[in-house]
């Protein structure tokens, strides 16, 4: 099995499945193919877990971070694929429409696998660019004006971002050209970084960060990400908010870990803090006026990405990774539940909701627990990671940043709670036509959402030491 499951095998398999998906014209075939892809994904994850830190292709190697993110990807990918089928069923999409969607999904996920596995900065860049294209198909899935605009913008801005990142890579190679490190693989860079010119390094990091920010969904290029999450189907938004963000993180974090071996580490930290703080600020600003539930969730992702960057910047890497993972689960659950919300109210608007507790009791539970997770309060794991991040920050020389961040987090908490609670409790107008109630099947559909949220609690507080230890290893990229 191990030998069989080489990344090449995976990519080949993925390509075949994608191809079959496009031509398969029956629902059962689609489901079968998707399931086989998930199995493929799972076995790759298992394979990489067993062969940690082994260079497999020239530039593909799995470290604990890769495996962690792959696990998340597998779980969320499975849920999203399942949800995608349901989504198509509810919308009554044609099978070809679904086929395209599924193929794009497979492609998208596979590209992210590539991002996670790559050990070469150029390769990372390439996989990310490729993920943009597949993601565009998924965002475009609804085929309405809104999604056209969002897709178009997404592709355009992503390209710009990629271009900026490419400039960053160029600057890096300029920095590296003066030294022996011609190879842009992470190992080579780490070995040679300390000999490079700090100024060039700084510039290249800036460009890389700015370029990849579009994937990570942080300042400065977060806007388009928000628009995309708003326009995409809810299960795709869930993926954009979780695994794609993880991919962005993976890229930025690996670069960061390379550069942090040099003298510019304090500068790197402060830039990340700045970037994180600005993200949280932006989230606070927009979340205050947001009227659209989906955008609310998207802005919340912006906030959490900011927290992750702050955790990285203040040195709480474990907290950063934990937060990233937990957020992936929590936010996915929320986005999936948003799908139910939309089905019940036929609207993205928060105002359209109300008395969700009676309309969809099971879904209301997801919203409540999800809200708690996103607000990082006990007994949610996010509480632990956020607390670790902030207390670590308080222990650094930059402790006063916390005085800016904490009030902003409070504002976000207030705004989110207010909106979600109003969806849950505010009595609906009797004149409203959106008085429909959830069906039993919808209640059953919340089971995966609860499962995701259960992971958030479990990982936070009852995780076995082995898992915690593995996460610890994953968060420390350079010994």
């Amino acid at each position: 099995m191990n030998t069989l499951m080489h990344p090449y095998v995976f990519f080949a398999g993925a390509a075949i499945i994608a191809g079959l998906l496009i031509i398969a014209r029956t629902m059962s075939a689609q489901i079968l193919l998707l399931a086989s892809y998930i199995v493929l994904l799972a076995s790759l994850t298992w394979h990489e877990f067993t062969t940690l830190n082994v260079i497999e292709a020239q530039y593909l190697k799995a470290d604990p971070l890769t495996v962690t993110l792959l696990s998340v990807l597998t779980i969320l990918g499975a849920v999203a694929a399942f949800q995608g089928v349901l989504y198509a069923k509810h919308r009554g999409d044609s099978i070809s429409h679904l086929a395209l969607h599924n193929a794009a999904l497979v492609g998208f996920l596979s590209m992210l696998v590539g991002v996670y596995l790559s050990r070469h900065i150029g390769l990372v860049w390439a996989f990310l660019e490729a993920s943009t294209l597949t993601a565009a198909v998924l965002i475009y899935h609804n085929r309405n004006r809104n999604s056209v605009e969002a897709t178009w913008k997404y592709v355009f801005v992503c390209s710009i971002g990629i271009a900026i990142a490419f400039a960053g890579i160029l600057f890096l190679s300029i920095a590296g050209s003066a030294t022996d490190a011609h190879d842009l693989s992470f190992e080579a860079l780490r070995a040679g970084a300390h000999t490079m010119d700090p100024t060039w390094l700084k510039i290249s990091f800036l460009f890389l960060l700015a370029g990849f920010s579009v994937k990570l969904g942080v300042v400065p290029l977060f806007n388009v990400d928000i628009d995309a999450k708003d326009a995409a189907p809810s299960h795709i938004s869930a993926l954009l908010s979780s695994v794609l963000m993880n991919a962005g993180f993976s890229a930025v974090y690996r670069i960061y870990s390379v550069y942090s071996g040099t003298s510019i580490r304090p500068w790197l930290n402060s830039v990340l803090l700045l970037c994180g703080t600005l993200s949280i600020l932006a989230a606070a600003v927009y979340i205050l006026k947001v009227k659209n539930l989906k955008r609310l969730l998207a802005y919340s992702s912006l906030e959490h990405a900011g927290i992750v960057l702050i955790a990285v910047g203040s040195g709480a890497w474990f907290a950063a990774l934990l937060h990233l993972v937990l957020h992936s689960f929590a936010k996915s659950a929320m986005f999936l539940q948003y799908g139910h919300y939309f089905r019940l109210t036929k609207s993205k608007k928060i105002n359209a909701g109300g008395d969700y507790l009676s309309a969809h009791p099971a879904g209301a539970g997801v919203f409540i627990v999800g809200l708690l997770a996103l607000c990082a309060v006990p007994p949610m794991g996010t509480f632990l990671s956020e607390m670790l991040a902030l207390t670590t920050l308080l222990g650094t020389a930059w402790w006063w940043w916390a005085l800016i961040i904490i009030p902003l987090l409070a504002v976000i908490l207030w705004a989110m709670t207010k909106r979600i609670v109003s969806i849950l409790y505010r009595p609906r107008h009797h004149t409203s036509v959106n008085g429909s109630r959830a069906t039993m099947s919808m209640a059953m559909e919340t089971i995966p959402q609860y499962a995701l949220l259960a992971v958030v609690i479990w990982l936070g507080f009852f995780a076995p030491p082995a898992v915690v230890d593995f996460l610890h290893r994953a968060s420390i990229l350079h010994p």
Partner: protein
Amino acid sequence: MRLTFMVACVVSLVIAFVTSIPAVTVLVTGMAWSADIGSVTYVADSFSAFMVLVINTGSVLAALYGVRYLADDPDGRSLTESILHGTSFVALHAAMIGVVISSDLYSLFYFWEAMSISSFLLVLFDARQTKARTAAIRYILQMHIGAVGILVAIGFVSSAMGGVTYSLVHDYAASHQTWIVLLPLAVAFAMKAGLFPLHSWLPDTHAAAPSHVSGLMSGVMIKLGAYGLIRFGLLTDPSTELGTVLLVIGIATALFGIVNAIGQRDLKKLLAYSSVENMGLIVMSVGMAFIARGIDAPYIEIAAWSGVVLHILHHMLIKAVLFQSAGNILHGTHTRDLNNLGGLIHTMPGTVNLLLLGGLGISALPGSSGFVSEFPMYISGIKTMMMSSTSISMLGVFSVVTLCLAGGFAIIAFTKAIGIGALGTARTKAPLTAHDPHWTTRFPQWLAFGGALFIAVAPGMFIRALSGVLYGLSEKHIPHDLLTTLDTVGIGQAVLIIVVGIVWLLRMLATRTKPVAEGPTWGCGFQEGDARIQYTATTYADSTIEIMSPVTDVSVSYRHIDPADMFPRTRSYHTEEKDLIANKVFDPLAIGVERVLRALAVLQSGNMRSYILYAFVFIVVVVVLTLAEVL
């Protein structure tokens, strides 16, 4: 709903039972209980054990009441809601116990937040009403901001000491400036305790919460704020300065709370402000104890601690009685507005009797537990007046004057609550159709009142039983004459109650043969008198509010009659009581912050060019900041 909560009630009882046994053991043996759960150590010394018992009693009372209260709940609730409510209740109970047995800041923070969030979820019960929803959200926001204090303390202590156990906090305070760690913690605790000026969440939240929860929050949860202040005050070797600060804050809180209680016409808000007052008294007494420790006056210290301990007990029991009575009234009449009540004693005698007894108790009148719990506070105050230092003596004067003023105001507040709400004639139809709830609803109330009565007649016994707690707090033994004084007070109270009984019997005997006629209340012979000829909650408070206008915020909407207007048309008179601090400080602040943030939102243009521009702006900004050596 009822069934779910019954499960919660049973779980709560189990928790109470399981935790009370070690707590009692600790109190009896004086040996601290300690256990490692996971990687965390939990410790219960005698003070924690005392708090555990307080929490258990309060929670069990609330749970018992809640079972029946929720059975009368008129709204249809979904299963999610029921489960949420029950779970949150149990979580709150457990989290409160967690708070008092934590021995490091991490677990404290965890339980603290858990306590906030579970109480928030409990408050959400009635969130279908906009007011309750707003109150709940304000509550969680303020709690969240407050809890940041603990977070900050964790940050400082852990970075400096490499850990956050209480002993490390102690070491940190000893080696650094104490206030760096104490101040943020104090903010968190003061927020929870509802200390002035951080009290503004309390009245709204208590009013919004279902009554069993209000009682629990007011009787128990806010006490944990005081617990935190005491715990960390003691950890950091309290000084006279710290004591003075707490004393002053306590005084401000007590007076502010009770004056504003008078202004309320919402029965539950009135009770909530009274809780603010009582927290003020407790914290004032804590301050007194710290001062006494600073000047090495053991008698005063013990007296002050006795006051704290007895008052925590007394307030927990009496507030349960009062809030649960308010709950009965709310269910019976569907209103909390005193201006709509009146005459309840004829339709809901069972509830009003309890309200009366509770009112006597909370006003600290002789014959009640309130009197014995304030008595040691007076002892410490008067004794402090007699100290040699002028400044210390004046602090004593302040505390004594506060106690007596608070007592006087409490009389006004609770004669208002009872006299306007329950006595007289009905002001609207609501009280006429009300009736007492099922007797089981009143069972926990009588239980609580019985406990309070027991404290009232045997305070000495309680203090003896809690000597371990007092020793734990002060490391000193209780002076003998303090015990005798308290014993005498208890006997005196018993005598008072008995003599009232005897005189009442004598009166019955004397008037047995006398003719008794019944007639309308004297109204100067006017025949068309109606309920309008009665003081209302608003006008009853008017004079006090006028005297105390600097600390109250009552807005009147009423168009004055012009002097030249000889024949005024009918007009209406409305008042609205707001919280001075919330209305004049926090709300403008929040609005200001929101306005600034909203102003920043212009950056979201939807224009793609500007999106891309941001990337370059970001890069340029970082470059500039780097060149300026800011980064």
